[in-house]
């Protein structure tokens, strides 16, 4: 075993959230494990933690419900269940469609939305969706707005020992649209724009354009003015951004794609049925 040969590794499978929290607090260096699609392959290349607390047997983390605050999705819900949930498809079809394109089907059967939040800070469609709906993350200790979770410093707020994400809530929009450019199936989209229109106004989340996902306030203003045509106004929407350039695409290309995706999202939002 890499780095830990001979050292016992403890695997706990608690049935309740309280038990999981207790294990994480009381067992030195214990690590929570959700679907494991990121962590297990990584552990093979590095080393196993001394103790693992698997969250997969906690049924309370797998509930999808609707209340006054909108759609609530338990952090232990698999991405495939998000994609195929009748409730999600009815309330926020753009999110169901997005989840159905995250990774591949075998991965989605195991990967959870909570795990994706903890491993996807830089790119991918999920950050844009949470920013573009004004979502709220609930932990066992506090509530964290998506705009604070995906922050420009490059990492999520640290969770305290024993603190776990329990669910996310997404306000019910009137309409929402997920637009992305994906070069390779199963991989992160190059650029993603997720826009929603609700009673509190417009929300636009963008990922892939910069090194970190962000809520695009200028894009929200541009969508609100109603003219969705190309021109100087659209050119100014992402003027303050620092588009990333890498082996996949130049910053200029990403910028052009983000503008085109924003236009498409705007058209979808203005369509009679939304998106």
């Amino acid at each position, binding site marked *: *075993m*890499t780095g*830990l*040969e*001979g*050292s*016992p*590794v*403890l*695997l*706990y*499978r608690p049935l309740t959230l309280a038990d999981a929290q207790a294990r994480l607090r009381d067992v030195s260096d214990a690590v929570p*494990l959700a679907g*494991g*699609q990121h962590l*297990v*392959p990584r*552990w*093979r*290349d590095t080393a*196993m933690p001394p103790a*693992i607390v*698997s969250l*997969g047997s906690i049924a309370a983390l797998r509930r999808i419900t609707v209340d006054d605050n909108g759609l609530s999705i338990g952090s232990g819900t698999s991405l*495939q269940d998000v994609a*195929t949930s009748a409730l999600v498809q009815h309330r926020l079809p753009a999110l169901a469609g997005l989840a159905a394109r995250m*990774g*591949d*089907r*075998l*991965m989605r*059967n*195991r990967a959870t939305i909570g795990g994706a939040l903890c491993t996807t800070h830089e790119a991918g469609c999920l950050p844009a969706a949470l920013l573009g709906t004004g979502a709220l993350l609930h932990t066992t200790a506090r509530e964290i707005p998506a705009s604070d979770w995906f922050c420009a410093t490059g990492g999520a707020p640290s969770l305290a020992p024993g603190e776990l994400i329990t669910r996310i809530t997404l306000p019910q929009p009137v309409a929402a649209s997920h637009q992305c450019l994906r070069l390779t*199936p*199963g991989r992160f989209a190059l650029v993603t724009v997720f826009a929603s229109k609700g009673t509190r106004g417009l929300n636009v989340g963008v990922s892939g354009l910069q090194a970190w996902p962000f809520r695009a306030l200028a894009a929200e203003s541009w969508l609100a003015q109603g003219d969705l045509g190309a021109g100087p106004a659209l050119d100014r929407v992402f003027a303050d951004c620092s588009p990333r350039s890498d082996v996949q695409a130049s910053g200029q290309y990403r910028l052009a794609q983000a503008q085109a995706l924003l236009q498409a999202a705007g058209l979808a939002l203005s369509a009679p049925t939304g998106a």
Partner: protein
Amino acid sequence: MKATALSSCHAISSGAPCRVNAVVHPPSSGAETLLEWLRGSAGCTDVRQACDTGHCGACAVLVDGRAVKSCSVLAGEVEGREVLTLAGLESASRPAARAVLDAVATMRPFQCGYCQPAFVIAAIDLLGSEAAPSECAVREAFTGLLCRCTGYQSIVGAVLLATRTLQASTPGGIE
């Protein structure tokens, strides 16, 4: 291959047995991967070991009816669950499994066959949830599964044949 990467672990849990291809096995005594446990303790060498990084999908098995990459799951997490590998499909009572196996026998869509168990498992997972998937849906369901021989066309064709067989035999849907 890093066959011992996750060995020397100890699981603390319910001790519930796991059923693999309808045979009851004591739970894994370690936090090895499901792939290692299946090929080792459970003797299921029909589960292929390839990339070991979650990229190729060759190690796919069904856990409670859902296809997963067994290299990316800890064996201790399938306690009390039902695991099906390719070898267990013949005796399984799933119409989708019968239809896919018959279509594979008829069309012989694989060449070297190393990836065959994974594609069959993934197809059964798909047909278990979608009664009549389109060709596009079949191709999407195969995202994350690598075949180095066929170019996928023949495999997709076999699954579409299985779909037609199922539709003909169960007009009201599948499972």
